[in-house]
């Protein structure tokens, strides 16, 4: 077989340019028994890229717990699927678009949202909510503002247009993300359990249908680029930026859901990274069949595209469907109604090969089994990170009041309203708790009494100090945020963002974080049902060395409320007693107080006792279910006093606080970040604490709801107006808005 005229000769050097190692290329040669064509080399290189093959992470991901009686499909499908009752399923996943968002923040973030939406509706779900977990560089870095602006506009631009409410997320700033922001987008959808669509192709001879937008030369080699280390050169790889078209995505959602209501579909898969290649290879591979593609039939946006370009294009808003042959005209009519391209571009075969034809020539002919089975799998060397040095004695140079003011105005705690006010959070008419109203967003399942509780969480500074604790903490905080609304936590999706796996210390962080996550998931019956790994998040320092981001295993959590009317928020009610649930030792290691007041990121992160986590959370949820809790907020960044300030700012009333725990320094009590704690407002504190004691849960009365601000034990009152002014200043100042 000859490669197309005018194309580069395939050599080991070219293979290396494509991101394959010499050894990997050797395997390609032995699988093929000849020199591959350029198109074949392209297919191998993307399928064996970190992004598609998970070659550095696969052995570790397998160790995560992924099952529970309510899990319908765990990792391995386009998204995770869990039973939420009443014959319905929630389908959800999180995915990164980190590198594209650095190169072109608007389009990078927008296409990230588009991609994760497709992962969810491809399974038959109507998307009902989006969330996003964002990490940006230092606010002082002049690039940060441009990136924040573009990313937020991009997420809003896409999500608002497709009409899926953006209901939550999280944002951190840290210099470790200066040249490498993280944009992790999560989508949640709802489907009937008996109408879930999978991607395994079946039925020799069945047509393979292409729908959506036309193919252009967008993002060729995006999959390999997103796996390669990121540096200034990346900016020169520009012209292949993908542009999203949310309008077409909206049409695609409606058209696919309309088709899914019929019996036409055998299998369906979105075209994500490495577009046509990965979708066709994965569908055929999972179904154990062969696939023949005729690229002349592919709808093309540009003239003269080669087979190589079409197979590797990452043009957005496209899907591949295997269809029952007698339903093709029905399907065609639906896509034509929605004014989308529809083309039969191939069929399934019994050859076990993917065969790609273009202009009368076979451009690729690859056996699928070895392409999958012999994909590289690395158990890369790991090195332990040094144990964090103990914090040692610490003083309070500013006092409680000053510290609170500094904390609630700092980048990691400042109000995110500037961000979420650019996201349509109400479209669909089912948003019960909008951003900022509760620890998890609450979205009603239309036409039922059910509610979904949704959150994303991770505390990267904990992960850097101790990746295992940090991994466990991220899972626990997601679980806690769901519990705090009264919902039952069901499952998580994750987005594991790390530096270069070729650095043993990064691999060490990765492995430790997964261990910690796994422990927490097991202890909390909170399995991982989908996820994404993003490695090589590195930037080049001026001295030429490469610097890794903070280890950031972002967790997306999902819970369910059988009766959504029972969901509670965090806003201070107009009456009640404030009670702390959970034990306080006053842990200031890696706390925001330490960072903002002392400028230090030191010490061990707060320890996490998963048995206590479970006990405290189960108790809080039962109390909410029993109708005994007026408001609830978990204690996380910034500790108890920050949690109280956030409740006050969200509500109408303030609070009057009692003296801190005796025998503990006040700053350690008010700002320590001990885990597994909640602040609740209850009407009957006596009954609540008695029930807690019976459940083996430690509680402590913090004070009373009342007044117009935070009245400290000293008698000083910080007015709510002042709290709000400080809290809401950061984003407008950063963005000059």
């Amino acid at each position, binding site marked *: 077989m000859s490669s197309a005229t005018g194309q580069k000769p395939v050599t080991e050097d070219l293979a290396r340019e494509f991101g394959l190692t010499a050894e990997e290329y050797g395997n390609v040669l032995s699988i093929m028994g000849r020199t591959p064509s350029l198109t074949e080399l392209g297919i191998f290189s993307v399928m064996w890229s970190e992004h598609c093959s998970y070659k550095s992470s696969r052995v570790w991901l397998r160790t995560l717990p992924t099952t529970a009686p309510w899990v319908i499909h765990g990792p391995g499908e386009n998204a995770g699927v869990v039973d939420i009752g009443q014959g319905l399923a929630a389908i959800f996943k999180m995915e990164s678009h980190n590198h594209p968002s650095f190169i*072109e923040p608007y389009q990078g973030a927008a296409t990230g949202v588009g991609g994760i939406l497709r992962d969810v509706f491809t399974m038959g779900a109507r998307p009902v909510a989006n969330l996003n977990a964002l990490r940006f560089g230092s606010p002082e870095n002049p690039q940060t503002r441009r990136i924040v602006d573009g990313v937020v506009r991009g997420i809003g631009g896409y999500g608002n247009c497709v009409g899926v409410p953006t209901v939550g997320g999280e944002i951190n700033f840290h210099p470790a993300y200066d040249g490498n922001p993280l944009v992790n987008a999560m989508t949640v959808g709802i489907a009937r359990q008996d109408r879930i669509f999978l991607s395994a192709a079946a039925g020799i001879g069945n047509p393979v249908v292409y729908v959506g*937008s036309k193919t252009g030369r*967008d993002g060729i080699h995006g999959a390999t680029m997103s796996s390669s280390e990121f540096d200034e050169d990346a900016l020169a790889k*520009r*012209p292949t930026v*993908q*542009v999203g*078209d949310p*309008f077409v995505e909206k049409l695609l959602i409606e058209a696919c859901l309309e088709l899914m209501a019929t019996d036409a579909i055998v299998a369906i898969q979105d075209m994500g990274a490495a577009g046509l290649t990965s979708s066709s290879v994965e569908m055929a591979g999972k179904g154990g069949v062969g696939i023949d593609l005729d690229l002349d039939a592919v709808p093309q946006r540009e003239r003269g595209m080669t087979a190589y370009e079409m197979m590797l294009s990452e*043009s957005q808003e496209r899907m591949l469907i295997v269809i029952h042959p007698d339903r093709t005209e029905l399907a065609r009519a639906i896509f034509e109604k929605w004014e989308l391209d529809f083309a039969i571009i191939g069929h399934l075969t019994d050859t076990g090969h993917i065969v790609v034809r273009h202009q009368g020539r076979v451009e690729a002919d690859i056996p699928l089994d070895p392409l999958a089975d012999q994909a590289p799998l690395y158990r890369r060397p790991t090195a332990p990170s040094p144990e964090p040095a103990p914090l040692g004695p610490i003083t309070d140079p500013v006092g409680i009041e000053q510290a609170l003011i500094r904390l609630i105005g700092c980048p990691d705690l400042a109000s995110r309203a500037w961000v979420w006010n650019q996201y349509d959070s109400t479209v669909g008419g089912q948003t019960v708790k909008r951003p900022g109203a509760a620890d998890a967003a609450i979205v009603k399942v239309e036409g039922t009494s059910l509610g979904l509780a949704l959150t994303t969480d991770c505390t990267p500074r904990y992960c850097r100090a101790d990746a295992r604790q940090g991994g466990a903490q991220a899972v626990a905080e997601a679980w806690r945020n769901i519990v705090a609304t009264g919902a039952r936590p069901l499952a998580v999706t994750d987005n594991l963002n790390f530096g270069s796996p070729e650095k043993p210390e990064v691999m060490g962080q990765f492995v430790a974080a997964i261990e910690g996550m796994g422990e927490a998931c097991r202890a909390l019956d909170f399995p991982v049902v989908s996820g994404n790994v993003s490695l090589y998040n590195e930037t080049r320092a001026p001295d030429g060395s490469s610097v890794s981001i903070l280890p950031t295993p972002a967790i997306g959590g999902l819970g369910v409320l059988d009766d959504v009317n029972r969901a509670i928020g965090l806003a201070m009610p107009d009456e009640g007693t404030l009670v702390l649930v959970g034990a306080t030792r006053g842990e200031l290691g890696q706390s925001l107080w330490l960072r903002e007041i002392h400028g230090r990121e030191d010490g061990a992160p707060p320890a996490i006792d998963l048995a206590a986590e479970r006990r405290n959370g189960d108790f809080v949820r039962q109390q909410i279910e029993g109708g005994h809790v007026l408001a609830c907020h978990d204690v996380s960044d910034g500790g108890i006093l920050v949690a109280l300030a956030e409740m006050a700012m969200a509500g109408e009333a303030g609070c009057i606080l009692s003296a801190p725990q005796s025998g503990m320094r006040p700053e350690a009590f008010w700002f320590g970040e001990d885990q597994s704690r909640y602040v609740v407002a209850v009407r009957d504190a006596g009954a609540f604490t008695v029930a807690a004691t019976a459940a083996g849960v430690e509680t402590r009365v913090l004070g009373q709801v009342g007044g117009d601000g935070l009245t400290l034990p000293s008698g000083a009152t910080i007015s709510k107006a002042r709290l709000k002014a400080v809290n809401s200043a950061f984003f407008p100042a950063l963005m000059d808005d």
Partner: protein
Amino acid sequence: MKVRVTVMLKDGVLDPQGKAVGHALHVLGFGGVGEVRIGRVIELELDETDPAAAREKADAMARGLLANLVIEDFVTEVVA
């Protein structure tokens, strides 16, 4: 001196707007319309009297702010 900067998407970059407008024109009954591309014009009143200097200034502004060179190209011209 008035300068006009015209910013268009680079060749090969998807232009969702242009695509949608092309389609709408077709539906409206305007036949014979091929590709449609949509861009931006920025008209600047500059405190310059030398056309070459004005253009140079506009070029710098386009590179620095007005165009997103990752996906867009630009042209500057002196109009008055």
